[in-house]
């Protein structure tokens, strides 16, 4: 990219970020064990925006930088250059508490050291709103109960977290994120270990929640077809480089996907008007 083009892109970014809730601006990152050595992994400068109510999917093969990008968005990692803005605030610069009031993160696996009940788990989402020694208020209980209801998991309230199925657990974890009342919802492979029915249930819930609560949702996923079906925007990564950003129909090009995923495949338009990927064996 020429210097002129770069300047134009960054000017566009500034203009566009006016109405965007999440604005990722020329964010890059480099991993290295030893600062003297060449980095083991780099994420090249990446920019995109997402508005309230939008679902954005981050796609790419293993080791393409999906989770790193998600960590940069969440503010857990500090970018090497560029910045991530949420409603105009740099996410990395927020205090842990303020950040937790605005950004909820659903991780791949939640392992508990000691068992707890689902309602206790969901109430943890109210932690960023409490003072250190405070006990949960009536409001916290109402918010947690609503969060469980929003993901259709009221009936799980009194169950132990280690005695419910993977799909049920994923719902409770999502409910805890909702109890944080965030602006931005980040999910790292939420459909991993779920059967197809549970995957569709979860993504249906996400789409409904994004629309109802005006969340901005960012999902890291391996599921090309589910991303095509549910995402408003897709970021396609390969080896730390964002190859294409836009609506699924623009990103899902056969040659591009074949090159990124190193496998022959076909792309057609599904009955919903969204692209559909089929892997061609042999």
């Amino acid at each position, binding site marked *: 990219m020429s210097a002129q083009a770069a300047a134009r892109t960054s000017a566009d970014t500034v203009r566009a970020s006016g109405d965007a809730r999440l604005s990722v601006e020329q964010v890059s990152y480099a991993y290295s064990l030893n600062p003297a050595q060449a980095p083991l992994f780099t994420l090249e400068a990446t920019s995109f925006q997402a508005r309230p109510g939008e679902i954005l999917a981050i796609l790419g093969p293993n080791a393409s930088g999906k989770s790193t990008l998600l960590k940069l968005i969440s503010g857990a990692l500090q970018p090497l250059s560029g910045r991530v803005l949420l409603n105009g605030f740099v996410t990395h610069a927020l205090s842990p508490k303020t950040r*937790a009031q605005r950004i909820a*993160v659903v991780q791949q696996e939640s*392992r508990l050291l000691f068992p*707890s009940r689902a*309602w206790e788990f969901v109430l*943890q989402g109210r*932690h960023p709103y409490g003072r250190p*020694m405070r*006990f949960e208020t009536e409001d916290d209980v109402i918010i947690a109960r609503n969060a469980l209801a929003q993901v259709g998991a009221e009936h799980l309230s009194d169950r132990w977290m280690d005695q419910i199925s993977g799909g049920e657990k994923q719902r409770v974890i999502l409910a805890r994120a909702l109890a944080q009342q965030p602006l931005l919802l980040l999910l790292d492979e939420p459909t991993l270990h779920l059967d197809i029915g549970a995957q569709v249930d979860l993504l249906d819930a996400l789409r409904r929640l994004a629309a109802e609560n005006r969340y901005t949702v960012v999902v890291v996923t391996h599921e090309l077809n589910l991303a095509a079906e549910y995402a408003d925007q897709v970021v396609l990564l390969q080896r730390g480089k964002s190859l294409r950003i836009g609506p699924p129909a623009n990103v899902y090009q056969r040659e591009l996907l074949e090159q990124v995923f190193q496998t022959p495949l076909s792309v057609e338009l599904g009955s919903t008007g969204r692209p559909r990927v089929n892997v061609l064996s042999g």
Partner: protein
Amino acid sequence: MRPLSLQRLLLRCAALAAVLFVVVVIALKLGAVPVSLYGLGRDLIRVMLGRSSELSTDYGMIVIDIRLPRILLGIVVGASLSVAGTSFQALLRNPLADPYVLGVSSGAALGAILAIIAEPHLAISPELAALFTPLGAFLGAAATIAAVYFLGRREGQIDSSTLLLAGIISASFLSAIILFLMTTQIGRDMHGIAFWIMGDLSTPLQQKLRWVLGVGFVAAAGAIYTTASDLNLLLAGEKEAMHLGVDVPRVHLVVYIAASVLTGLAVSVSGAIGYVGLLVPHVMRFIFGSDHRMLLPAAAFGGAIAVVIADTLARTVVAPAELPVGVMTAMAGAPLFIYLLRRRLA
């Protein structure tokens, strides 16, 4: 959905305090010299009214001047070890963590011994000299937990079994140094080997140290309690806790220092009493659940109750001879440790 309320917390603490009171009364009554409940009550009231000079009999003197201070010491030591154990379990995310198993108690004992050896060679005023042993024990505890923490890491992550192995190896290494020092430093005014290795409450506490122990316990346990709800989230992992608004490095630092203070204080006055920090938190978790806002005070009361009972047994089962209190706690604690380890591996 019924989250913990202040009222429920206080009610449960009151119940535990009542149990502790009953245990203390029984412990005062039992011993080589029998005491009647009536005489006990009468003498206790006289002491509370500041009329100790009117104490009727030698029996009263035994109860008030010997048994009561020893029981109070047991209460603070038990509460300290148990709160330290609860904190280490959350901090290291390991249900088998305990100051004794991790070698932290041995480190504190070595620190205390080194302080006792070094003290005459340093020009310290007598007032500060009393503080010197607990300070050495704190530094020994803090250094050991740091060493065990780094030895227990594999590929940047705390590994449960590596951590326990590191702790057990450290404990045995430090005990060897303690035995070496005890053998080569004969003739000094120092407790015996059994005191440092097994723990013993029979040595009366120096007057000056009473304040250090009391204030130190309240400050350190209070500091840990301010992180109680953060510890609840840390159980699910450091990343999860961070995303829920926990300032993870700050909580680690507070709990690490305060738990080392508690271990150091307890060990400097009673030696390395084992398994209290392992056994009691598990029993309390079983009864009250794993919410640290409830668990930490429950562990404090439970630790006090457990050590007073263990020490009463140590005083009485082979009377007129006495066992170190650590013999009783290890006899009860080691089998539980094995049970928990087996269940965890299953």
